[in-house]
């Protein structure tokens, strides 16, 4: 009897199964195939042959189909996260749309007199890129969440929904004020984070100076308008990290909006985000300059040496102060969250 075919079949099924269970399932399939072959051999009165094996394997089904029956339904974003995912998506699309419109407005205003189809095409292309990138980021974050929930072994019942404690309406009165989520503050934070994600990821060009704008306004020579970028490459090195923090903050806020109250887990998560923010701000303080403009670039743009010196000092010191403020504000927030956790648990 050619067992090679059975071995190949079983191993084909096995390599599509989770590591933990595949040996056990493989052994069971092999045992069943042997039962099926023996029964067939007894019925026909013929010894087991290759033809019989082929017939049995065909009846058992394609390896990928067999393996799929053991896995249950698997999702990139499952039913428990889908409503939150859709909510995030709607907010992102709305904010991205608004910011894209602002971007288009800025682009048009900067090319007044030279308004062209190219400007519109570029703005539309930027918009499409923004939407796709935002969508990709959100799907990526939610897919990680889904995977993490699955790995954490959140129990799933027969209908595929997570097991939850029986809801008691009396729990509503137990919510004390320190645990209540402030709607306005939360929504503002969501919008602020989205704005930051979109601006720093998709419209970094709008952060800068247009020193010749006044001249252009006076003499109408719009082609002389140039943009001096404010932020250096060193700053944009931090943008992916900041983006992850902003996306996580948005998800946390959306979860809070849905739950309506703070829990210990959400507070721990919030503290974690604040700590990451402080680390990033500290790294920015210690790292290379975040400012792209130099005395030289400002001088060539403005022409006034004294004014340039003062402006450079203001910008450099302004960034340092802003970073220290971020660290201090983050630390105060952490203390506030811990205080509210203690108050809320009373």
């Amino acid at each position, binding site marked *: 009897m050619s067992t090679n075919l059975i071995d190949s079949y079983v191993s084909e099924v096995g390599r599509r199964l989770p590591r933990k269970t595949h040996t056990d399932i493989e052994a*069971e399939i092999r*045992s069943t195939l042997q039962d099926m072959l023996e029964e067939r051999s007894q019925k026909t009165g013929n010894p087991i042959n290759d033809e019989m094996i082929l017939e049995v394997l065909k009846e058992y089904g394609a390896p990928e189909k*067999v393996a799929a029956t053991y896995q249950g339904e698997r999702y990139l974003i499952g039913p428990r996260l889908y409503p939150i995912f859709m909510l995030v998506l709607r907010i992102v699309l709305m904010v991205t749309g608004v910011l894209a419109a602002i971007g288009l407005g800025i682009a048009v205003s900067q090319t007044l007199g030279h308004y062209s189809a190219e400007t519109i095409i570029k703005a539309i292309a930027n918009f499409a890129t923004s939407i796709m990138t935002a969508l990709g980021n959100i799907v990526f974050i939610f897919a990680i969440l889904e995977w993490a929930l699955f790995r954490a072994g959140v129990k799933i019942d027969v209908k595929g929904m997570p097991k939850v404690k029986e809801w008691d309406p009396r729990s509503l009165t137990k919510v004390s004020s320190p645990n209540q989520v402030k709607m306005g503050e939360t929504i503002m934070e969501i919008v602020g984070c989205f704005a930051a994600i979109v601006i720093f990821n998709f419209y970094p060009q709008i952060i800068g100076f247009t020193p010749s704008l006044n001249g252009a306004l006076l003499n109408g020579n719009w082609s002389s308008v140039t943009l001096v970028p404010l932020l250096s490459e060193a700053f944009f090195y931090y943008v992916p990290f900041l983006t992850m923090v902003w996306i996580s903050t948005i998800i946390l806020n959306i979860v809070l909006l849905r739950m309506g109250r703070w829990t210990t887990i959400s507070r721990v998560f919030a503290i974690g985000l604040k700590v990451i923010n402080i680390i990033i701000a500290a790294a920015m303080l210690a790292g290379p300059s975040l400012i792209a403009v130099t005395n030289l670039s400002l001088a060539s743009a403005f022409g006034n040496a004294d004014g340039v010196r003062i402006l450079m000092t203001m910008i450099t010191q302004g960034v340092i102060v802003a970073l220290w403020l971020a660290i201090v504000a983050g630390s105060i927030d952490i203390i506030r969250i811990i205080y509210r956790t203690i108050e809320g648990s009373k």
Partner: protein
Amino acid sequence: MTNESFENVILELRRGMIVLAVLSQLNSEQYGYSLINSLKEHGLEIDQGTLYPLLRRLESQELLQSNWRIEADRPRRYYVLSDEGRTLLPRLRKEWTGIVSMMNKLLKEGA
């Protein structure tokens, strides 16, 4: 109703019933293939792709227990009701009888 919709409804009906059918046959130990045959003899055809994952699920829900045994020079996995499964089966049987009599009444009225 198209044939496809009909098949889908039948599939849904069977899905709920199969769990009880399988539990009902596992008062005494059976290995997978013998269980398929025993259900077939009673008129319920069930393929391996449905049965084995279901057996694993019922075992993870602690309604069944299983053990490997060497028989005729090869291993076979035997399944049997656990204590929890034995407690649950009469309750499920009663529930099922109630469903059948309720459905009969509904279908009689609707005829």
